[in-house]
C-alpha cells in the first residue's frame, strides 16, 4: 500500500540529496581532521601558486633592474626576505581558510544530522507498515 506520509518524507529527503545535501554528504564522508587537512593542503598549493604568479609579474616588471643588480645584492638576505613574505602570506591565508572550512564542516554535520533523523523516522514508518 502507498503511504502518503512516507512518500512526502521520501520526497523531501530526495530533494535534499539532490541539492544542498550533495555537498554536505561529500563533506560528511570525512572525519573532521581529514577534511580540514585535505583542504589546507589544497589551500597551501593555491597560495604557493598565487605567490609565484605575483612574484613573476613583479619580477618581470622590474626585469632590467633585477638583471643589473643581481650581482650586487646579497642573495641570501633577499632569499630570506622572500621566504618570510611567502610564510606570512601563506600562513595568514591558510588560517582564514582553516576558519572557513571548520565552519563548513560543522554546518554540514549539523545538516546531515537532521537528514539522518528523517531517515530514522522513515525506517520507523516502514516498521509500522510491516506490523
Amino acid at each position, binding site marked *: 500500500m*502507498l503511504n502518503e506520509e512516507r*512518500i512526502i518524507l*521520501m*520526497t523531501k*529527503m*530526495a*530533494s535534499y540529496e*539532490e541539492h544542498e545535501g550533495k555537498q554536505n554528504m561529500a563533506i560528511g564522508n570525512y572525519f573532521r581532521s581529514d577534511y580540514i587537512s585535505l*583542504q589546507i593542503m*589544497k589551500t597551501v598549493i*593555491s*597560495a604557493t*601558486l*598565487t605567490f609565484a*604568479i*605575483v612574484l*613573476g*609579474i613583479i619580477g*618581470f*616588471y622590474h*626585469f*632590467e633592474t633585477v638583471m643589473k643588480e643581481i650581482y650586487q645584492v646579497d642573495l641570501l638576505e633577499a632569499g630570506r626576505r622572500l621566504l618570510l613574505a611567502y610564510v606570512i602570506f601563506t600562513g595568514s*591565508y591558510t588560517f582564514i*581558510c582553516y576558519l*572557513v*572550512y571548520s565552519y563548513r564542516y560543522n554546518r554540514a554535520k549539523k545538516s546531515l544530522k537532521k537528514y539522518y533523523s528523517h531517515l530514522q523516522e522513515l525506517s520507523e514508518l*516502514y516498521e509500522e507498515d510491516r506490523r
Partner: protein
Amino acid sequence: MTNLLVLKEYLKGIYGKYEIYITPVEKFLLSLITLILINRKLGYMSRLNSMTIVLVAALLSSFLPMNFMVLLAALFILLHLYAFSLECAIVVLALFLVMFLMYFRFSSKDTVMVLLTPICCHLNIPFVMPLAAGLTGTPASAVSVGCGVIVYGVLEYISDSVSTLNSMDAESAMQKYRYVVDGLMNNKTVLVMVFAFAITVLVVYLIRRLSINHAWTIAIAVGALMSIAALLVGDLMLETNISILPNIIGAAISVAIVKFLQFFIFNVDYSRTEHVQFEDDEYYYYVKAVPKIAVAKPSKTVKKITSQKKDVTPPPRAVSSAVRKSDKSGLK
C-alpha cells in the same frame, strides 16, 4: 499594492510550473548579453565576433552550470586580448588566475557576481551589485563584487589605451607590459570603487539583518547613501576626479532597480517544482512536487445577464423595503 502582490503570486506560480524552461532561457540571455558586451568592448579577434559562435556559446551555457558561463566569458576576454597584445593577455590571465586561486576556488557560488558587476558598471548602474549582494549574500560577497570591479577596471583601461598601446613598437614588449601592469596596480578610480562597494555590501548586510521594521528598505537607502559618501571620501583622499553627479543619478536608478528586484525576486520564495525519483522494496516513485501558492488569486466569475421577462418579481431592493415597511407597521 494588492495588484502587485497578486502579480507576484502569478509570477511565482508560473515560475514554479515552468522553472525547467525558464532557468535555461535566463542563463542563455545572460550569457548572450555578456558575450556581446565583451565583443563590443574588446572585439580584437574577428572570429569570435561572429554571431554564430556567440549563439553557440550562449546555448552551451544555457544548460551547463553557471560557472561555465564565467569560464567562457574569461576565455573570450583572453582570446580577444591575445589577438590584440600578448602582454595584455598575460597580465589579465595572471589576474584571473589569482582571483580563482585565492577566492573563487572555495566560493564558487559567487562567481556570477564577477560577471554581473562589470555588466552593471557598463550600463552605468554600478550600485545595483553591492546593494543586491548585501541583501542576498554574505559579507564575503564584498570580495566578489570587488573582483568584478577590478575586472571591469582593467578591461576599461585596456580598451581606453588601445591607441597608446598600438603606438608602442612591437619590439618594446617590456614597455607595453609595464604600461598594462601600471594600469592594473595604480588605477585609483578602481581602488576607490572597490572600497565604496565593499563598504556598501557590509552596511547593507548588517542593516538588513537587524530586527527592525522595513530593514531591507532602510538597508537599500542607507547603502546607496553610504556608497556615495564612500566615493566622495575616496575621491578626496586619492584625488581620482570621479564625477559625483552621474554617480548620484546612477545610485538613484540603482535603488529603484534593487527595490524592484527585492519585491519580485529577493523576498519571494520561488520554490521550484521538484522532480525526484526514488524507490523502496515495493515501488519506483517518480514524484513531481509542486509548491503550494500561499495567497489565493482572485477567481474570475462570469455573470450571465439575461433579458428580463415581463412578469418578473419586484427587484430585491423593493422587496426588502416592502418587508421593512410591513415590519414597521407590525411593530406599531
